């Protein structure tokens, strides 16, 4: 079983890992010839299934496995991986490979940092003494410009047998009622977090916010570019409304039964209701999310991708986060968040 790759996009990979780490401690990583899949299924809260095209973060990607489909399944703790990537932030190159040390399987990151940007501007000084010293030191230490430091970070992992991951399936959801492009996630997060704070500060004894699972926010979308976030407590009712968002057109090729399926699609029916101002009560698909969990999901905003939210009324919310720099078609990197709705 072999796996080796160089990491070309350390920043994206770091932010990606950080976003996953907010939801859970352990990720199931599936490597194959085409892509890298990271899945986090926490005990409670939202799950994320992500597919990274191998060129999105890796280069010179080699994989060799006895398992069918040339697949390797790993269980990777996210915090150590995050730490390892952090030390690669200023590196010039980073490699990752699967290895074994003392019979413990490891993901080993080899990070090369050069001291080139060391602020030692000796040459600019006119002082001849310094200049001489510099030349001597170049002889002694080797050229300062070319000095490299190699750091190795080992992340202990577990290799999963194909049989043990066979039973893990991506959640299946009915066709969504509303799909909408979300506004900037950082803005949405800052407002959502404030709502969560409001809910916990007013501590209503009944309705929303009851119980130990924390306050619930109500999130709704319609097929006319409106997104609504609302909260009701004893002390107040507050809602934020975004208008003028985009409802992407469905591709008939991707809907079951093609054009007919599209005509009967729930979103087509939802389109007949509601309006662009979002003032009516009709045409909204609503889910209730747990405020803190929702805030953690929204931290994926740091990746800066385009986000499409699919609302299944009263049932679930699915977020598709498309990462930067990918054209349509194959090789797309997508994070899919499954957020189930709480009952009112």
């Amino acid at each position, binding site marked *: 079983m072999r796996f080796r790759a160089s990491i070309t996009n350390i920043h994206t990979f770091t932010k990606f890992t950080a976003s996953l780490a907010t939801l859970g401690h352990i990720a199931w990583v599936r490597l194959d010839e085409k892509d890298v899949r990271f899945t986090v299924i926490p005990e409670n809260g939202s799950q994320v299934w992500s597919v990274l095209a191998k060129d999105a973060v890796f280069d010179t990607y080699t994989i060799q496995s006895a398992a069918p489909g040339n697949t390797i399944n790993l269980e990777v703790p996210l915090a150590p991986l995050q730490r390892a990537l952090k030390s690669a932030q200023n590196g010039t190159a980073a490699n990752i490979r699967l290895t074994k040390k003392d019979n413990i399987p490891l993901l080993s990151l080899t990070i090369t940092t050069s001291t080139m940007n060391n602020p030692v501007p000796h040459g600019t000084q006119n002082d001849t003494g310094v200049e001489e010293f510099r030349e001597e030191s170049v002889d002694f230490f080797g050229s300062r410009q070319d000095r490299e430091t190699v750091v190795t970070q080992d992340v202990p992992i577990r290799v999963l047998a194909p049989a043990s991951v066979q039973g893990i399936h991506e959640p299946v959801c009915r066709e969504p009622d509303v799909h909408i492009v979300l506004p900037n996630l*950082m*803005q949405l997060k800052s407002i959502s977090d*404030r709502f969560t704070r409001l809910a916990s*500060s007013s501590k209503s004894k009944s309705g929303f916010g009851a119980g130990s699972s924390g306050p619930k926010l109500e999130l709704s979308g319609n097929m006319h570019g409106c997104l609504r976030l609302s909260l009701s407590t004893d002390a*107040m*009712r507050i*809602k934020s409304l975004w*208008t*003028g968002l985009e409802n992407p057109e469905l591709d008939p090729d991707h809907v079951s039964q093609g054009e007919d399926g599209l005509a009967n699609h729930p979103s087509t029916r939802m389109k007949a209701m509601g309006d662009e101002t979002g003032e009516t009560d009709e045409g909204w698909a609503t889910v209730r999310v747990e405020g803190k969990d929702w805030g953690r999901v929204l931290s994926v905003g740091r990746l800066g991708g385009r986000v499409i939210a699919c609302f299944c009324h009263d049932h679930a919310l699915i977020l598709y986060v498309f990462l930067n*720099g990918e054209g349509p078609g194959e090789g797309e990197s997508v994070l899919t968040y499954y957020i189930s709705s709480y009952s009112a």
Partner: protein
Amino acid sequence: MANSQPLFTAVSSSARQLILLLRCISFAKKVQVRISLDGLHFTTDQGSVMEAFVVLEKALFTSYTYNHPAPPSSQDDPLPQPVFEVSLSSLLETLSIFSLYDPATIKRPSGDPSFDAFGAHRLHRHAGFDPFSARSLGMTGTCTFTYDGDGSPLRIHMAESGVTTSCDLTTYEAASTDPIPFRRDALALKTIMRSTYLLDAIVELASLTPTELTINAFPQSRRQHGTSALSISASGALGSVSVSFSAPSSPSNGAATTADPPILETFQCHNSTRARFSFSALQAAQRAMGAATKVSLRIDEAGVLSLQFLVEIEPVSNAGGALSIGNEKVAFVDFRVVSLVDDEYAEEEDSGGSSTADD
């Protein structure tokens, strides 16, 4: 009242100003709001021991409409002004909902082809100077208050770059508490100082976690040279602290230094005054002490303490040239505290015996 116009609407172009003032009195859970023709009166209280109030004057709002309902017939007394209570924390959180969100730091979505790193850098760097940014156009933090009479919620509506937030604050029937009477015509002590001095003194005293504090004031005539005019002292399990303030030199006493501005800008006291107050009440005013520039501390003959804070409000926008420059508005935040009843009240007692920490 079947007319479509709401009873009350006000638009503020700067939620930050309102937050600044309302934070000063944010020690209680609920705040009483009274709408009058000249402003919004906010009152909070702690039992009946202490109350604080701030008036958001009409001038703080860009538009202020209060349609005072006419009495049913001309013989009737005018209808009372609308009074209600709302949750103060909810009000403050609502007003600051957009303050965390800084448009300059937000990246554009990736779908925008015109976005590039250099452009982002430029945007970021010149964010403060962009003449068309929402900030310099005065668009940030604009909020509208609406209230439509008994039983209806206080509605706050805010808009910012594509998002509108509206909040209905449940209004509660106001508990009818009479304001703490304060006799301006019968003052035992009146002094004005920079509010940071008072804040420093309270912070100093807070280290003892006392339950009460004593204010002592000595009139000019009774003081020997060098003794303090005003002292604030408290004692706790670990000891006692007394912070003393010296009075400004009177014109007749020419020996005093003129280099330092006096700590107490005004000091009027005719008889030795001593009064005890709950320390927590004074601590509740800490936020106001931090926000204000000056404080007028008065005690009337019944022992009621009045702290009046002068808060300078920054102009709405620094970019708009049309705005009056150098004409910053001021607002007042008032605290009134009832003194604790002293069993062995001794009028003539002096402050000997306690260790002093001079300010």
